[in-house]
């Protein structure tokens, strides 16, 4: 593009009208479309969560058991397949990856748009199932129950299958982009750590998601034709489904957390004004986590009747994941040491991540210990553990990322005070909601039940009150974003004084990202 900097033109006003958005191949616009859809799905999934906590506020029922089962299933399926998996790669990653690499776009812009439509079509199919008795299997679709229950489950399963293609296409695109579209002077070790996170994630998306695809296809065929793969009557095996399912769904946990760790690396170095400590250690630990994650799926199946030897091996390998994870955590803390830390809202979310994710990680090691897992299996302890990882980890990173890149996305600033208030509400509410669930689980309260005995009532009430605080926090966060969009002051090009490439172009960036092709001469974090 001829360069005379006409900064009134940017990607937002490059073309006009709804149609120009729905047919766009600009990665930044696709990122914004993902933002809108993911936030919408998050609101729906969150509403189901509120209904779950409403039912569990006190013993005795508000809703029927069957209705509760559907709340729980849709909360899980929406949050996993429509929010957390596309949340960082497809939304923030889409916007930031090419900017971080100094590229004009992702490698395959049309495929990128297609992946968004896959998500939409899959989501619509999933929601249609609500009109066919919904689904009540939980998001894991375990056989043999999922084979026997209502046929609405088929639609949810097929919806998840289609959404899988969205994830696969994003993964293919990001791997190719990272390999082929780095700007001049940017080797692999000059890439920002968010890119390393996205790259490891994309590899997982490419390798793991097709296995989920075939698993869900077989489950649908099982329900439609009774093919018997998972049915003992014909010599099939319900546990085979669990193996297939977790072969994808454990790496999927890292599809959710690796890019989150990438964002945290960006935030901590930017707000400590200090070069990241142990760049290569963090980069390689991302790849390391991705590699190990394919060999740990059996930790979901300690009580499924798999052999004890397999159990021991899976237990050992699972604990191995703790090593690269701890390497990252120590490096982040070391980065902050003697840094000039500024407690702006993105940094607050990053610190929230460190605190909550550490609890989630350590309880994960507890669950990986076979003897303890026998006690904790399918209790609220597990629920609390993975919410500390998924919400305390991934969601905190998404929020931090939104507030970090918001000025770049829209060229506006938001109310810092409001953003900090939302953080306090979410952080406090989160702990009030989920910490009691560790205790409930340790006391033996099983997950997925719509009711419980009197003895569990106090902690459940506390947990429900906490959930309203989280809800309030997210409403405040949404108001802050909308207020920023409408009334925000104009954002400077680099409000945080950060060093990665996206801050060296205008806010918002022009259609082709940079006015002159960037050339990199040093590392991504040259603070001091």
């Amino acid at each position, binding site marked *: 593009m001829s360069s005379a900097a006409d900064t009134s033109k940017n990607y937002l006003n490059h073309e006009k009208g709804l149609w120009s958005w729905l047919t766009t*191949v600009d990665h930044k616009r696709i990122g914004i479309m993902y933002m809108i859809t993911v936030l919408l799905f998050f609101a729906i999934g969150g509403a189901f969560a509120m209904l779950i906590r409403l039912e569990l506020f006190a013993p005795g029922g508000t809703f029927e058991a069957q209705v509760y089962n559907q709340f729980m299933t849709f909360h899980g399926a929406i949050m996993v397949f429509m929010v957390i998996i596309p949340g960082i790669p497809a939304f923030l990653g889409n916007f930031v990856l*090419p900017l971080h690499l100094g*590229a*004009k*776009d*992702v*490698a*395959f*812009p*049309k*495929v990128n748009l297609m992946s968004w439509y896959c998500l939409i079509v899959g989501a619509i199919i999933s929601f249609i199932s609500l009109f066919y008795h919904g689904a009540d299997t939980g998001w894991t679709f375990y056989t043999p129950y999922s084979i026997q229950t209502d046929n609405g489950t088929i639609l949810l399963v097929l919806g998840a299958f289609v959404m899988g293609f969205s994830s*696969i296409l994003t*993964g*293919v*695109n990001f*791997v*190719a982009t990272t*390999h*082929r*579209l780095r700007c001049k002077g940017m080797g692999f070790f000059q890439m920002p750590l968010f890119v390393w996170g996205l790259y490891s994630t994309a590899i997982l998306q*490419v*390798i*793991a*998601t*097709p*296995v989920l*695809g*075939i*698993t869900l*296809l*077989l489950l649908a*065929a*099982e329900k439609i*034709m*009774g*093919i*018997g*793969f998972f*049915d003992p009557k*014909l*010599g*099939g*095996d319900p546990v*085979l489904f669990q193996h*297939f399912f977790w072969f994808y769904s454990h790496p999927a946990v890292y599809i959710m957390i690796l890019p989150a760790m990438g964002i945290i690396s960006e935030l901590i170095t930017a707000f400590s004004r200090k070069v990241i400590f142990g760049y290569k250690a963090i980069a390689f630990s991302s790849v390391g986590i991705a590699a190990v994650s394919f060999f740990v799926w059996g930790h979901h199946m300690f009580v499924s009747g798999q052999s004890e030897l397999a159990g021991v091996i899976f237990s050992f390998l699972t604990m191995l994941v703790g090593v690269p994870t701890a390497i990252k955590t120590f490096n982040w803390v070391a980065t902050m040491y003697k840094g000039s830390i500024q407690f702006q809202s993105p940094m607050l979310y990053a610190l929230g991540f460190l605190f909550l994710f550490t609890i989630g990680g350590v309880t994960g090691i507890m669950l990986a210990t076979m003897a303890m897992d026998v006690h904790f299996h399918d209790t609220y302890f597990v629920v609390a553990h993975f919410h500390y990882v998924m919400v305390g980890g991934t969601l905190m990173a998404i929020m931090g990322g939104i507030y970090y890149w918001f000025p770049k996305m829209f060229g506006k600033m938001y109310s810092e005070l409001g953003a900090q208030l939302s953080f306090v509400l979410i952080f406090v509410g989160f702990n009030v909601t989920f910490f009691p669930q560790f205790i409930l689980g340790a006391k033996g309260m099983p997950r997925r039940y719509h009711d419980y005995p009197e003895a569990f009532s106090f902690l459940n009430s506390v947990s429900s009150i906490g959930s309203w605080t989280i809800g309030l926090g997210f409403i405040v966060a949404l108001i802050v974003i909308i207020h920023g969009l409408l009334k925000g002051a104009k954002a400077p090009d680099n409000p945080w004084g950060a060093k990665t490439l996206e801050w060296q172009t205008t806010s918002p960036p022009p259609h*082709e990202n940079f006015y002159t092709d960037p050339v990199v001469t040093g590392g991504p974090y040259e603070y001091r």
Partner: protein
Amino acid sequence: MSTANVDRSGGGHAHHFESAEHEFDTSKFGTWLFLCTEVLMFGGLFVAYFIFSNLFPETFLEGSKYLDWKFGAVNTAVLLFSSFTMVLAIYYAQQNNNKKCANMLMITFVCGLIFMVIKYMEYTHKIEMGLLPGDMFAFQGAESSNLGLYFSVYYMMTGLHGSHVIVGMGLILWCWFRARKNEFNSGYFTPVECVGLFWHLVDLIWIYLFPLLYLID
């Protein structure tokens, strides 16, 4: 797999690439990645095949006897030949010969069609006999009690493969239209190349399916 409306006649390329070559390499790299996902998707079925054939060797042996290896062999030959014509199509595109390229693509397409017709004949014959998957199995006189499981494996594997053949045929037809419009030249033949890679993978999977399903004995 690139941005719309780029003039390719004189080495043009989409705006985010440095050169036509850069774009070609990247597209090919992306195609390979996509093929990885295909291998893993079929991988799930192959794993199921090996688990069940190990658990029930007699069932699988009996099941394979109801398949006619002659049909399978003809289809293998047809697909191998089509891979050869696909290679020629790429060769002619590189030689700026769109006419011959289009002809080769059409032959490849027809081979795919022959494959599907034979598959259709096999399917209807099995369905008439009641050799159906799983619960729907209605054939009288099977020796194994769970012969339906073998046919579940058979229909899932050949069905998923067949759907890939159909998709491949669609892609080949798309290339054929573009070749007819003289769109390919020595500097730009990315679609033929990438569709070719996909088609070879589809062939390759069949080459594994044929002995696994038809030639157990």
